[in-house]
């Protein structure tokens, strides 16, 4: 094969064939459809948040009616959790897991495809609430009963919301099945479990939690449905408390479903741009598994103030989560110390993730103490806490992965200058928006209110200004992506000097991913092993080797030796 075969070249001009995209079982198509759809939802539900923040710029201002405000916060929360962060977390797995384990595709491609259509349908059903007479659902993203029964919320919005959540839960379950089965069945020869990159492990534990959590959400939606047809059943205490338990049995693992894949992104980005292997691979894998197991026993900390939960037990289990979380942070920092850091856009996002998520994590440990939770529960302190984990954490981790894998997925390079502008504006906007919310919550600001006491005015004005900066920063992302797709420079197969298998094929990868075979797999960084062995060989053979055989992708003119059986 010639040396240019795997090098940078423009993708062939091809008309987009909608029917082909809509029916393709290629994991890359399903993955990109999922991510693209989730990003469109991100813009819509993010727009809802900006509207709410504009309304909150004044204690009493009625930019929008209270009713509309209630619809917006309900759909902002529901949308971001069911239709944005969860699908992004799982969609990254659909796109990347086969590539990172050297597989030609998913084990259950049609299952993943069905999951995508459930997601798409869920979005349409949820948003269609705005077209009904009573408006969209306005009961909050966890929609406590009996408020959401037909007695207290008679409109069709809640009905549509329940249908949408059914579909979203099904979608998450099917994505999870697909990812786990791919990892079980499709790993390349010699890609043993402990040679899978950390990102793949993060997807495995995510999918495992998904298998446990999404059925509970479906069960919770069955109760919701019962409340629509027989609200009388929910006039006494027990079914209402049942609903809360069932919902949070889903609701707590899901916050780690919305977190781990981004830990995986950050780990991959840190080692690639730090130009070294990850430090503490096995403890990190162990901590992910431990985290996933423990995440199933902490749901009651959402219910400390119900007066009907075993607070001391759930406080202990929740506080214990700081142990695996600490081990993950150990891995981040130990890899950075001794690295050789190249400050490209993906690394900037990964670095910001570390202290920002830590703010969310530390405030989370505070919320795990019932005595502190009695003050913070349901206040803006909690709003600040979970936006630090989900936005300042997960979304930053996603952007680290987005800027890292964009060249691989599209075959085009993004602009570093626009990317860094996006990064700095987003970092400033995020902290100015969500930082003051801790203080507002401490001082007595409740979440889900369109009006608030005037002594909280200054804090809210600052938060609203911060949210405008977040909105502004996203324009740089849109321009960057648009410009790259239209006339960005073509991406080589391995633009970042990567460690893992996805960089051993063209950008974008062809159907079945690795037509030229794979480098030998000896560790969780097989491509790095291969490049190092070539470098070592070149160093010994230097006098005889012609200089012209310069590398295209693998650091050498030689093609990777195909493994038997691929």
């Amino acid at each position: 094969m010639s040396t240019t075969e795997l090098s940078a070249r423009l993708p062939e001009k091809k008309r987009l064939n909608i029917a082909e995209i809509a029916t393709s079982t290629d994991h890359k198509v399903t993955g990109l459809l999922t991510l693209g759809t989730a990003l469109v939802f991100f813009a819509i539900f993010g727009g809802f948040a900006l509207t709410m923040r504009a309304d909150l710029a004044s204690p009493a201002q009625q930019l929008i009616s209270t009713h509309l405000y209630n619809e917006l916060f309900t759909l902002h929360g529901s949308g971001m959790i069911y239709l944005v962060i969860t699908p992004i977390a799982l969609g990254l797995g659909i796109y990347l897991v086969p590539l990172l384990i050297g597989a030609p595709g998913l084990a259950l491609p049609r299952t993943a495809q069905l999951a995508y259509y459930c997601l798409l349908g869920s979005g349409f059903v949820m948003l269609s609430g705005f077209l009904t007479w009573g408006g969209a659902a306005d009961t909050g993203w966890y929609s406590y009963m009996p408020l959401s029964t037909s007695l207290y919320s008679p409109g069709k919005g809640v009905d549509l919301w329940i249908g949408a959540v059914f579909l979203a839960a099904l979608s998450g379950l099917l994505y999870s099945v697909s990812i786990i089965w791919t990892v079980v069945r499709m790993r390349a020869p010699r890609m043993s479990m402990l040679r899978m990159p950390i990102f793949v492990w993060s997807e495995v534990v995510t999918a495992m939690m998904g298998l446990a959590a999404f059925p509970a959400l479906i069960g919770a939606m069955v109760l919701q449905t019962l409340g629509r047809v027989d609200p009388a059943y929910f006039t006494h205490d027990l079914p209402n408390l049942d609903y809360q338990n069932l919902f949070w049995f889903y609701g707590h693992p899901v916050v780690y479903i919305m977190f781990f894949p981004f830990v995986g992104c950050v780990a991959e980005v840190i080692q690639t741009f730090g130009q070294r292997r990850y430090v503490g691979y096995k403890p990190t894998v162990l901590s992910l598994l431990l985290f996933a197991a423990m995440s199933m026993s902490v749901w009651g900390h959402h219910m400390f103030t119900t007066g009907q939960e075993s607070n001391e037990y759930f406080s202990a289990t929740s506080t214990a989560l700081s142990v695996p979380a600490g081990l993950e942070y150990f891995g981040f920092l130990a890899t950075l110390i001794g690295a050789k850091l190249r400050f490209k856009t993906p690394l900037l996002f990964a670095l910001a993730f570390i202290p920002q998520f830590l703010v969310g994590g530390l405030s989370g440990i505070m919320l795990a103490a019932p005595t502190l939770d009695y003050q913070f529960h349901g206040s803006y302190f909690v709003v600040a806490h979970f936006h630090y984990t989900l936005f300042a954490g997960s979304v930053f981790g996603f952007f680290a992965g987005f800027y890292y894998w964009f060249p691989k997925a599209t075959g085009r390079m993004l602009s570093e200058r626009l990317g860094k502008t996006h990064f700095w504006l987003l970092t400033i906007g995020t902290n100015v928006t969500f930082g003051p919310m801790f203080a507002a919550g401490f001082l007595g600001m409740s979440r889900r209110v369109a009006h608030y006491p005037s002594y909280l005015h200054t804090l809210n004005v600052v938060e609203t200004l911060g949210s405008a900066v977040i909105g502004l920063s996203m324009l740089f992302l849109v321009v960057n992506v648009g410009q790259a797709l239209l006339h960005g420079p073509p991406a080589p197969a391995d633009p970042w000097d990567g460690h893992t298998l996805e960089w051993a094929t063209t950008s974008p990868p062809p159907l079945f991913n690795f037509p030229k075979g794979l480098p030998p797999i000896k560790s969780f960084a097989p491509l790095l092993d291969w490049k190092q062995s070539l470098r070592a060989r070149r160093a010994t053979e230097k006098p005889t080797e012609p200089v012209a055989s310069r590398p295209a992708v693998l650091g050498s003119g030689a093609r990777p030796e195909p493994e038997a059986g691929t």
Partner: protein
Amino acid sequence: MNTRSQFDHLFTLYAPIAAFVFLVVLATLLFALVRYRAGRGHEPSQKTQHKVLEPLAALVFIGAACFLAVNAANANAAERNQLGPAQLHVRITGFQWCWAFYYPASHVTVRGNCTTDTPTLVVPTGKVIGFSLTSADVVHEWWLPYARWKEEAFPGHFNYFKLRFDHPGHWSGLCDEFCGLYHDRMDFYVRAVSPARFDAWLAARAAKGPGA
């Protein structure tokens, strides 16, 4: 204030620990960024594990988690159990969208509508007050930020808790569980007065009859 003092005790324990951990991580991170930037032209380390440091770190994390969990459990137990028997009972009922406070011993009810009339819960200082909290319709949550205390009100169920107000004062509280369209109006006041003034107030209210 029993709940407030437990909160203050625990918060002054947690906040410095959280700040310390944050600063250590931030300082380590900044050190790594400056010391190990590619511009310095060094070679990256080949190390892939810390055989001593990592288990040591795990032990420290486990120790810290145990310490925090024990303190959290103790504070919670103290907050829930430390007061003696209640010297006055008050029933709080949340409804869409306001509150009613009922003093069963003297059959006095204070009920507001939260648009023209914000209800005030009057309590005597220094006495242990036993509250029973319920809802007439959906789930509400009774939050008094000054007390650092809130609890959810469920329909068809009573939640019990005890508070003791040490000093006279006047504070506002609110509903903290989303309960429908006018959730953000569900404010109330708490006024703590000396036992003598409280008795006088209660007698005056009782004299007006149950409908007042």
